[in-house]
């Protein structure tokens, strides 16, 4: 049992004890018992993912691995962040075949044959983005001071790139609506909107 599963089991047991009406012998509301499922063998598969233009061969990988965990833990592409793990914050946003998605809601095994772009691959198509070769939106985030702690930033930038590409950055209100899947706990929204708008304007006139 790994740490996370242990915690889940311990939490489950803990809150069952805290429920005032629960008593010994009462039906468990936690169905099925986690421990029983731990015994099940986790299916693994070997497969390849194309990330920032390069093919990555993955060793035997559990089929229940999210694209997010695969990027961060297996491939050490840690620019993509894990916030909620539930689709609610947007920190894990990446592009799959050019479309922005939340990588915490995707299974890695289902991404075979698709083109995945992460923040590491944004500056240069070869996936070797360097501080000298930033994507215009990365540069605009710096110019506009569009972050504080930076945790949401790679997700904001990936989402912003797609937002501009989709043509949904025509006004501040439009950017706010179409960037609503990216939360910023530091509240850098004003400057995020400014950065996205500026790059949208520049790419429209280019």
């Amino acid at each position, binding site marked *: 049992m790994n740490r996370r599963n242990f915690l*889940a089991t311990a*939490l*489950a047991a803990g*809150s*069952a004890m805290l*429920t005032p009406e629960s008593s010994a012998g009462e*039906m468990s*509301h*936690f*169905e*099925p018992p*986690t421990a029983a*499922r*731990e015994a*099940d*063998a*986790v*299916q693994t*598969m070997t497969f390849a993912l194309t990330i920032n233009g390069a093919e990555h061969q993955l060793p035997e990988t*559990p*089929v*229940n*691995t*999210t694209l997010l965990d695969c990027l961060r833990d297996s491939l050490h592409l840690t620019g993509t962040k894990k916030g909620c*793990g*539930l*689709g609610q914050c*947007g920190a894990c*946003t990446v592009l799959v075949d050019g*479309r*922005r*998605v*939340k990588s*915490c*809601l*995707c*299974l890695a*095994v*289902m991404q075979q044959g698709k083109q995945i772009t992460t923040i590491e691959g944004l500056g240069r198509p070869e996936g070797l983005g360097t501080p000298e070769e930033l994507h215009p939106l990365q540069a605009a985030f710096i110019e506009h001071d569009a972050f504080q702690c930076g945790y949401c930033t790679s997700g904001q930038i990936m*989402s912003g790139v*797609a*937002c501009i590409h*989709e043509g*949904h950055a025509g006004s501040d209100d439009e950017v*706010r*609506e*179409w960037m*609503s*899947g*990216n939360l910023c706990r530091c509240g850098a929204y004003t400057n995020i909107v400014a950065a996205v708008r500026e790059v949208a304007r520049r790419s429209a006139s280019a």
Partner: protein
Amino acid sequence: MIPFSYSKPQSLSQAVASHAGHGSDRGSWAADYFAGGTDMMQLMHDRVRNPERIIDITALPGLDRIQVDEQSMHLGALVRMSDAACHPHVVKNYRVVAEALLASASPQVRNLATLGGNLLQRTRCGYFRDAVLPCNKRLPGSGCPAVGGQNAGLAILGTSEHCIATYAGDFANALLVVDAKLHIAGAAGTRTIPVSDLHRRPGQTPHLETQLHPGELIVAIEFPATTGGWRSHYLKVRERTSFAFALASVAVALDLAADGTVQDARIAVGGVATTPWRLPLVEQALRGRKLDAELCRKAASLAATGAVPQTQNAFKVPLLQRVVARGLEETGGLA
């Protein structure tokens, strides 16, 4: 994440057979279809669903197609919410559907989520989503702590003493007012049902949420061609402007004569009921009368007829009436 095995069938019959092999008699352990995965991933993360196998249906041929002809439009069950919402034919002829989709979730979720999965999304009731708490929907007979508990977001219409969970989706409400049908396939063959027959009220059996038999797949959604004077619109009110589930929402379709007389009306509401919910009394109050602000308000006053407010959600009664009135006015160009 819970352990599971993974399969990716290449045909409908393979998918149905794969499902049958992982028993529907196994409660939350039974196999689950997996489309966009946006609800499945949350449900598995929270151990509300614990399938021993997930069946990836994204390779099933033809289910991602959009077909338009003079009589109808078919949207395949695997069409992504974002693609349906910006399809020119949907935008032009089924405005309420496009608006309901765009008012749902976020761009990143809509790029993954499918239409079939959207219709079958599970309630957001906090007791259902917390696997350690009792919930009649998740674990039949364990009780409903939402009655008398945290129920501010829960339903006032269609409830029973066993369950007051809200149907949280937006798209299904819009489908009700455009008279859409579902094409379904399963071990026993194919069938077609009106969308209004899909969801069941909780009654004594809140764990039975739809009319689908175990292992049945939604294949496509069929829309009859729109005619003449129909106008439609979706209005959704949330705790914040965007990226939130509805506190109350309304899907409106009105057939208006040139002088503004309502020839026919279909109204459905979301965020307030246990299923997508039509308002026949409001529709009846509108028919044959000239649409003005006064009529909108009068008809909308019937919207919460039969409502059973709980300890924390009585605010939904006036909210629903106002949302319906506003939705009617906006549809009729009065607001």
